[in-house]
């Protein structure tokens, strides 16, 4: 045993990690990956969509829309995400008489929350597009919507892609929070194994490694995507 570990790792070795008890449960834990990815992808999609609409509200120069978007953002940025999840999950049945399942409750909370953050990023991206682009489109007689869709937003998104990737990474990690409403995602599965086997460190370490690998993979994909977007540079 001693010969396997360098001296500096000795204290760690003395923790006597025992993965043998966890190994049979690893497939069970890994199955949680699908849940986390589903939460992240669906929420990132809706969050991005809603965030874009909010960003357009914020720059539209129409006071009620601007006011609404700013108020919305302040609420979702001003309260903890975990509280939003719990409120949506528990308040929906009470207020709307609709027994919402944990998955849609989580998706709604994440999408609404992510929209608030990404709307600010997208707003910045839109404002960062050279004003001459808009003027050129206007002088050609292009209408507002196609101008935004074809000219302004593609340039804005390209510039804020790194920030949007950041936002998605945060979402992926925050997807562990739905464990509080009982969704069996990675983190929750790790805890279940821990409680059953009376070992804590090993299953949670497995969870940590899986998250880390997912995010590394995601970062790699995002990089490739970004490079492809840069063909027009």
């Amino acid at each position, binding site marked *: 045993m001693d010969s396997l570990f360098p001296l500096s790792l000795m204290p760690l070795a003395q923790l006597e990690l025992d993965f043998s008890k966890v190994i049979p449960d690893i497939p069970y834990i890994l199955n949680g990956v699908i849940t986390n990815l589903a939460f992240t992808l669906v929420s990132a999609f809706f969050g991005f969509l809603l965030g874009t609409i909010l960003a357009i509200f914020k720059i539209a120069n129409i006071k009620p829309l601007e006011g609404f978007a700013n108020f919305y953002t302040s609420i979702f940025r001003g309260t903890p995400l975990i509280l939003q999840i719990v409120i949506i999950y528990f308040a929906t049945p009470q207020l709307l008489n609709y027994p919402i399942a944990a998955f849609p409750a989580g998706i709604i909370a994440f999408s609404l929350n992510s929209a608030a953050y990404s709307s600010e990023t997208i707003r910045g991206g839109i404002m960062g597009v050279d004003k001459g682009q808009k003027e050129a489109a206007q002088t*050609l*007689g*292009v209408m507002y919507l196609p101008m935004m869709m074809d000219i302004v937003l593609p340039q804005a998104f390209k510039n804020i892609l790194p920030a949007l990737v950041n936002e998605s990474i945060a979402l992926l990690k925050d997807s562990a929070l739905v464990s509080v409403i009982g969704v069996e995602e990675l983190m929750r599965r790790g805890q279940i194994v821990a409680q059953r086997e009376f070992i804590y460190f090993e299953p949670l370490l497995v969870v940590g490694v899986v998250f880390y690998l997912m995010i590394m993979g995601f970062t790699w994909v995002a990089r490739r995507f970004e490079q492809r977007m840069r*063909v027009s540079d």
Partner: protein
Amino acid sequence: MIKVEQLSKAFGPLEVLQGITTDIEKGQVVAIIGPSGCGKSTFLRCLNLLERPTKGKVYLDGVELTDPKTDIRKARQNIGMVFQHFNLFPNMTVMENVTYAPIKVKNMTKGNAQELGYNLLSRVGLEEKADVYPSRLSGGQKQRVAIARSLAMQPQVMLFDEPTSALDPEMVKEVLDVIKSLAETGITMAIVTHEMGFAREVADRIIFLDSGRIAEDAPPDIFFSTPKSERACQFLEKVL
């Protein structure tokens, strides 16, 4: 063709244009010159309402553009504009830049638009650049594409806002040559420029602006040989 009445524009307390009244006839090529800060770009930008005039009226073919009821987007289709900094769409190829507005605004088919696009690009000598992105072009090439893009809407009037001011000296000529060839087609043009030789050669008429007013309005040979106003004399002394 273009009629301007008592046009004024103020940015806060700064009065950039102070009551400009003039007419630009069909087919006329007008060069607008003057010292920097005299309001020449603002004047040009008021003609297609990129800047909303504070006071006064602008007519195009008898239609009052400054009337809030006028569909300015429609009217702008008849007024092409070329900018100092080109403002090409960087996310589109050269061909897409040229064909975008005809397809989206005039509902032209892609095939027809591309045919038009090739015609226009060959007119500015850039048909072989159709499929590259603007970032691969030199400044002069970008400006020629921008001219082609404007022409694709088949405007009745072309406005040029210092089209060569952002170019390296050796690229100025290729752009001026394109504008010159355009002038010969009989399209109405208003050009804000610092290129005096070019103004003299191409323009039918020089408008000299000073502190937001028309200080002199004359054919080029008269303006450059015997300017009447003192301000124009000083200006010409410095630039010629």
